């Protein structure tokens, strides 16, 4: 499938959280795989940072996946943060009002987490 070449995900597990780094372009063809990845990661890690610094494109279907994962995380007592969005990804998350709610607060440590 074309979508296999469009995006990649890498997950790092830290003592206090998991960091999922997404790269490339995320669109409707990635919805099912990304949803499964975030669900699985949240099951093992109540706090998940989604690093968007290498993501160049996302669309409305991916916004719904991220927001749903955030809902699932908070319902389970954890959280999901969007970190380091750049360029147009930052713009889309901002105009939809999602970024202020899903980016870590002022007290949160930016990635990488304090880990030797």
């Amino acid at each position: 499938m074309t979508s296999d070449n469009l995006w990649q995900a890498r997950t790092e597990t830290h003592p206090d959280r998991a960091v999922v780094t997404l790269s490339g372009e995320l669109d409707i063809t990635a919805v099912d795989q990304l949803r499964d990845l975030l669900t699985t990661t949240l099951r093992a890690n109540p706090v998940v940072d989604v690093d968007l610094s290498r993501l160049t494109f996302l669309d409305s279907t991916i916004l719904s996946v991220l927001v749903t994962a955030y809902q699932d995380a908070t319902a389970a007592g954890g959280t999901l943060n969007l970190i380091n969005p750049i360029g147009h990804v930052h713009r889309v998350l901002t105009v939809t009002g999602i970024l202020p709610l899903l980016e870590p607060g002022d007290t949160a440590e930016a990635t990488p987490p304090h880990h030797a």
Partner: protein
Amino acid sequence: MVSARGDESLSLAALITAEQVPELRHAVTAAAAAGLPDEELKDFVLAVHELTTNAVRHGGGSGQLALRRLGDQLTCQVSDHGPGMTGQVPALPDPTRPGRRGLRLAQHLTAGLVLDNTPTGLSATVTAALPKGKAR
């Protein structure tokens, strides 16, 4: 002065299917790159992408795309084979809720979104203004 009718050209025409959504996005980017600066290009491409995604999800699964330059404007029309649409473009949902943001994004990121119900389905057109000096 409104541009002359003769000043119209078709930049891209393509069939839309689910598998081709990413390819179409790249083709629209390539075709529009000469006319639009970076930020406007990305806005326009996402808007068109949202329309093609809508055609696949809600418009009967397929459609047609036509990218045109009309004088100092770039337009992209996406026609689908779905039930059409009544009412307004849905408002953005609460930021913490999933939901349909595509059409509202397309409207917000371009100079305009026009929706028409046709006998065969929904026709959605977004427009971007070409900067002066790049209009030809």
